[in-house]
């Protein structure tokens, strides 16, 4: 369970995240929908303790991220594509992360198989296609078998097979009781993936609703519902 209260963050003079408050519950996929620059990535970075908020709190199962003893065992995150050193093999990348979380080596083989990279495990990650790179990122997120998953625009740049694979994975993880928080600016994909929706614009929370409710607001179209909310907000 993720709890955010009054979260605020500025970079330089720009207010990136403005007094956000919401809860994210396990067992369903919560989508984070908003235009580019609306504060989605910033919110996730604040949740992971990568940036310090100016005000407010972002707690995971009641505790700040920094208080987690073995963070990767509680929270798995994919924030950027290709967040690995190109000279390392996929296996070495995952082994290093497993070592950081006192996880057994067999977890590395397990997640590699789970994401379909078992054959490419000993190749330099720099040679991976975008789809393979995203799967490596997801393998890293799943390494500690965490209860919470944060995914920032996971399907950007993927081919249809990749998009569907991630969507199926996300839905199955949520169905098995995990807390899944996925951000995107692709409305049609969000309609297929998410149950609950947090709509963000200009750093502020515009709606805490469900896909069904926002679609109804838009007269049967999620896109219309979304634009109705975010009209004129930048």
């Amino acid at each position: 369970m993720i709890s955010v209260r009054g979260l605020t963050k500025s970079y330089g003079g720009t207010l990136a995240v403005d007094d956000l408050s919401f809860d994210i519950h396990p067992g369903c996929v919560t989508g984070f929908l908003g235009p580019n620059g609306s504060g989605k990535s910033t919110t996730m970075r604040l949740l992971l303790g990568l940036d310090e908020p100016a005000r407010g709190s972002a707690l995971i199962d009641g505790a700040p991220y920094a208080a987690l003893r073995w963070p990767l065992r509680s929270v798995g995150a994919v924030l950027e594509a290709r967040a690995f050193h190109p000279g390392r093999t996929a296996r070495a990348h995952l082994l290093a992360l497993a070592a950081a979380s006192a996880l057994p080596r067999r977890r590395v083989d397990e997640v590699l198989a789970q994401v379909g990279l078992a054959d490419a495990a000993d190749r330099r990650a720099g040679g991976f296609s975008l789809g393979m790179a995203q799967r490596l990122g997801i393998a890293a997120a799943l390494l500690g078998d965490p209860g919470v998953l944060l995914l920032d625009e996971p399907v950007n740049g993927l081919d249809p097979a990749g998009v569907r694979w991630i969507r199926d994975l996300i839905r199955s993880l949520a169905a098995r009781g995990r807390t899944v928080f996925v951000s995107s600016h692709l409305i049609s994909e969000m309609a297929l993936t998410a149950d609950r929706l947090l709509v963000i614009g200009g750093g502020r929370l515009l709606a805490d609703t469900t896909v069904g409710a926002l679609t109804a607001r838009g007269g049967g179209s999620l896109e219309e519902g979304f634009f109705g909310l975010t009209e004129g907000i930048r």
Partner: protein
Amino acid sequence: MEWIKLRSLRSTRWVLAGGMVATVALGVVAGYNTRSVTGDPTSNVLAGALVGQVVTGVLGVLAMTSEYSSGLVRVTFAAMPRRMLVLAAKAVVFGTVCLAAGEITVVASFLGGMAALRSSVPHPSLSDPAVLRAVLMTGAYLALTGLAGLGIGAILRHGAAAVGVLVGGLFVLPLITGAASRATGKFMPELIAGNSLAAVKPVAGFTWSPWLELGIVALYSAALLGAGGWLLVRRDA
């Protein structure tokens, strides 16, 4: 985590090996060219450290900046939010490897250089404590330069800029300060290495104890690592 990261990069291994070979080769050439009977053959054959320090320094920089350039740093800090610990682990792992490689390299340089010395020139031996001191200190210097590179990398987070500062600090700064005052040479790491740490016979202007001089170099590296660590914790990832 950091040990796996260091040993899983082929490029690091090759660059380090290349640097070691170049350092030894320079030492052999310097030994061969030593003609003076009254000079300091030990210091001469350790001249390869000129190259060695750039290699270890740059590897140190890259150990940190490559995390930023690839975006790995955010994964690393998510896996291990205690950032000081991450830097400390990098320093221990990298420093130990550099020290081992450094000492192997300088001993090989010394032995190779001695083998290349002309028979007319006196041949120092490692059983002489001053010679042993010079050799081992030069190896330690290579490791300290590597750690300084790691610190500069943590401060600047950008590879090219950090290498520039490293090279500038090692080679350009002494030229500038030396033009103003020769007395500042005692504080310049690169000059310290050649004229004090590696020297068996005293050199004019470097009369301080080599242990003190080594301490000064260690202090620089510690300060750079400390500043890097402080910034790492305070700044957004």
